[in-house]
């Protein structure tokens, strides 16, 4: 107990570190935020390349894309969308708690909730991938497809695996960063005067959520009505 009290006292006595190139902590915080947005800008264009390819091939082969899309499991896709939105909420709550309180355990709780929901998303994604392997819908020598225009459908599945795969890699990286933040928040590193890492990780996590918000209708909902 005494040990714990000393640790807290030490942490509170330390001013938030300001690197020498900044005038003050506020300027440092703003610069970090801007840097993160510039990184997200490159990420938007990174994913944007795949979205461009998707737009080209869907406009060329609308029927094949429609039929191939309907082989995806819409129930799992919708559940996953809801799970990811939930993880964005818990992430936003983690940032909020770091902004208003010194309770590291509270921040850690919401970060852990985000990790759990992110892992549930990846687990459901793994089930969907396993189904696709089972149905031989994975592009390559083993590809077998009974529906309309198999070669064009194979293109759709190529894009499906590339886009959801790149998205899933981002989620795995996000879970890794969140795990580090859990440890940091339990050590009392964050509070109203310093929460930049939590905030920037939040931006990253919400960005990944936005990518999925577009992937869901483009991959799962192409032609459900016919």
């Amino acid at each position, binding site marked *: 107990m005494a040990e714990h009290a000393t640790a807290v006292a030490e942490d509170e006595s330390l001013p938030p570190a300001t690197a020498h190139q900044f005038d003050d902590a506020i300027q440092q915080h703003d610069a970090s935020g801007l840097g993160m947005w510039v990184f997200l*800008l490159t990420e938007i264009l990174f994913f944007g390349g795949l979205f461009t390819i998707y737009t080209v091939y869907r406009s060329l082969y609308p029927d094949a894309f429609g039929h191939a899309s309907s082989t995806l499991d819409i129930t799992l896709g919708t559940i996953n969308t809801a799970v990811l*939105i939930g993880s964005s909420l818990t992430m936003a*709550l983690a940032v909020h708690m770091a902004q208003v309180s010194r309770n590291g355990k509270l921040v850690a709780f919401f970060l852990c909730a985000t990790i759990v929901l992110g892992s549930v998303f990846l687990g459901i994604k793994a089930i969907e991938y396993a189904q696709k392997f089972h149905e031989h819908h994975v592009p390559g020598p083993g590809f077998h497809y009974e529906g309309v225009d198999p070669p064009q459908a194979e293109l759709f599945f190529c894009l499906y695996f590339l886009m959801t795969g790149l998205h899933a890699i981002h989620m795995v990286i996000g879970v890794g960063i969140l795990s580090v933040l859990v440890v940091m928040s339990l050590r009392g590193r964050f509070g109203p005067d310093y929460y930049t890492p939590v905030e920037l990780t939040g931006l990253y996590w919400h960005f990944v959520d936005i990518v999925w918000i577009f992937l*869901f209708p483009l991959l799962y909902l192409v032609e459900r009505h016919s």
Partner: protein
Amino acid sequence: MSRHDHVVPLPVYFAIFTALLVLTAVTASIAYVDLGRLNVFVALTIAIVKASLVLLYFMHLRYSSRLTLLMVGIAFFWLAVMIVLTMGDVVSRGWFGG
């Protein structure tokens, strides 16, 4: 910093969360209604609304500096350039309707 950053009230987060779930249900249901060419349009409009809600409230863009807004504007501007110019090339090659 707390002196500088806007702290979004918790009810706002829960309202946005609910709106996002409702919009997800709407977009998944409306996909089963045959609207012809409008289906893509409706699906993308709902996605853009959802993305805007996340950007504005979860990512605090509504309370951000103009410099940050400029960054986001640039990102979507170049994304539009990439897609529009590429499609301009594709549609002008006579690949459609033989």
